[in-house]
């Protein structure tokens, strides 16, 4: 039983490690979209116009 628990803990850590690698390899589409929106708002100055008197971001 103790052995089983140890194995389960080991499996958990291994899966997590693999997940981390996956996250690093695949393109973070949602984060990229957020970053693009922030830059576009600044370049086209969309935010200050929408909310006058407020500073951007």
């Amino acid at each position, binding site marked *: *039983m*103790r052995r089983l*628990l140890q194995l*389960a*803990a080991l499996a*958990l*850590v291994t899966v*997590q490690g693999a*997940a*981390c690698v996956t*996250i690093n390899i695949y*393109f*973070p*589409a949602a*984060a*990229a*979209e*957020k*970053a*693009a*929106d*922030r*830059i*576009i*708002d*600044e*370049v*086209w*100055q*969309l935010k200050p116009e929408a909310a006058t008197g407020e500073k951007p971001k």
Partner: protein
Amino acid sequence: MRQQIRFLWALFLFLVWGSALAQGANLDIDTPAIAAIKAAQQARHVHLKPYYESGAIGLTRDGMIALRDASLVPLAQRATVSALVAEENRDRAALYREIARANGHPEWEADIRATFANRWIAKAPAGWYVQNAAGEWVRK
């Protein structure tokens, strides 16, 4: 035994939390190089804006801009507008490259460009010309 199960459960929760944190991570866009490109684009936008509005310049499907109808630009200004378009495209290419590089993944450049292409077009005001997926110009 019960203690061990509790430990395992705590470990599991910790790992789930860590993975959620990693997935919610943002792309870093606050480097000096990116800020400089952004500032140049912002300053240039004032000059480009009337040509977006007249339809002389449009947003391409590959995240760039193009002089789509030179006849809408007075002859005397055509050279200036062409130069503005070329400069803007140079900055856009540098921006996509820099974001990919700043985040340690130069190979993401094409994905970043594609993301930007979609977002520029989505955020373009009504009346501006944008390219659809087939490369045809459409007025928003």
